[in-house]
């Protein structure tokens, strides 16, 4: 999927009556038992409003937020109303079974391991391969989370190895705790910043392309044309 198609998915919801500007879908990935569900539960303020789509085995929660685009010059960025969908597995990774639907429609990935389980950290490499194969592009936006930071005495993954992995793949890394809430907001916000920046860039690019063709491009034109993207996804 191209960057512009990615942007259109969010912008397509930006109709006159929609109460939000962007619909953003994040997917939590990682071995079973690392705390994905608890993490998302913590992020959505402990609400039980999850919805389950049994045909594809996706469990998701939703949250409305106001996102302010980060700027480099310290000025206030533009604000956008974001409807965030947080996708979770329904446990099928226990059977080593995840269908491609799971990866394909997500715009950002919360890749999680358990700081107390070395195996879950080793498997991060496998998850990255899966991601690169099935996600909308080869370098999707990912945030790496080492969860269960509250279980300090049971830690079994050395910091150095985590840093190495994060640097090698260019992933922002957070130590998180779904139990105490440590860095849960920060990690999701970080991913949202990345995804929103990617969208801004692709929309800007589309504007430039439109201008080059000598046409005046309005916001609605842009959404229309992107909505009709030929992307097969």
């Amino acid at each position, binding site marked *: 999927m191209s960057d512009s198609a990615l942007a259109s998915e969010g912008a397509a919801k930006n109709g006159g009556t929609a109460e939000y500007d962007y619909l953003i879908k994040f997917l939590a990935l990682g071995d*079973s038992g690392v705390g994905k569900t608890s993490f998302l539960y913590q992020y959505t303020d402990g609400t039980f409003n999850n919805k389950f789509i049994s045909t594809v*085995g996706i*469990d998701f929660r939703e949250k409305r937020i106001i996102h302010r685009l980060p700027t480099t010059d310290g000025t206030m960025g533009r604000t956008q109303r974001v409807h965030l969908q947080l996708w979770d597995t*329904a*446990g099928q*990774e226990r059977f080593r*079974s995840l*269908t*491609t*639907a799971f990866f394909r429609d997500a715009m950002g990935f919360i890749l999680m391991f358990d700081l107390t389980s070395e195996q879950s950290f080793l498997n991060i490499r496998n998850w990255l391969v899966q991601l690169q194969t099935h996600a909308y592009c080869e370098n999707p936006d990912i945030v790496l989370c080492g969860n269960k930071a509250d279980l300090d005495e049971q830690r079994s993954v050395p910091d150095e190895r985590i840093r190495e992995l994060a640097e090698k793949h260019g992933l922002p890394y957070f130590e998180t705790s779904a139990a105490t809430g440590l860095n849960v907001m920060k990690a999701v916000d970080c991913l949202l910043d990345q995804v929103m920046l990617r969208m801004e860039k692709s929309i800007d690019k589309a504007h430039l392309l439109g201008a080059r063709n000598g046409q005046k491009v309005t916001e609605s034109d842009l959404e229309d044309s992107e909505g009709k993207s030929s992307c097969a996804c």
Partner: protein
Amino acid sequence: MSVTKMPWETLGEQFVTQYYQIFDTNREQLVALYHPTAMFTFEEHKAQGQDQIKDILTNKLRFSLIQHIVTKIDCQPTPENGVIILVTGRLKTDNDPPHAYSQLFYIKPANDSFFLFHDIFRLSIHDTV
């Protein structure tokens, strides 16, 4: 549609009941139902013979609790006195939502008893909604 159950149907249902009873309570004992040459497909895992099958059942499946709820059992007899069984059901692992699944068994007599010769399992989850 016949009202009376055919003998292979009764046999199939008894087998399925026993299989899931053991699967849900004492998974490592399940291997006793398989013939030494049995073939086993469980999602992406493939195995033949009791040792390989036992390894998958006890070491490769990452859940502690499982509960099968059978919806339908369909059976057909085979010329070698075996029974082909198709199970349509749902299962629940630990605290996860229930998943639909299909499982196919082939049981056949050997040494005065029925053994499992083929077992194919697949979760009913799809690539599109």
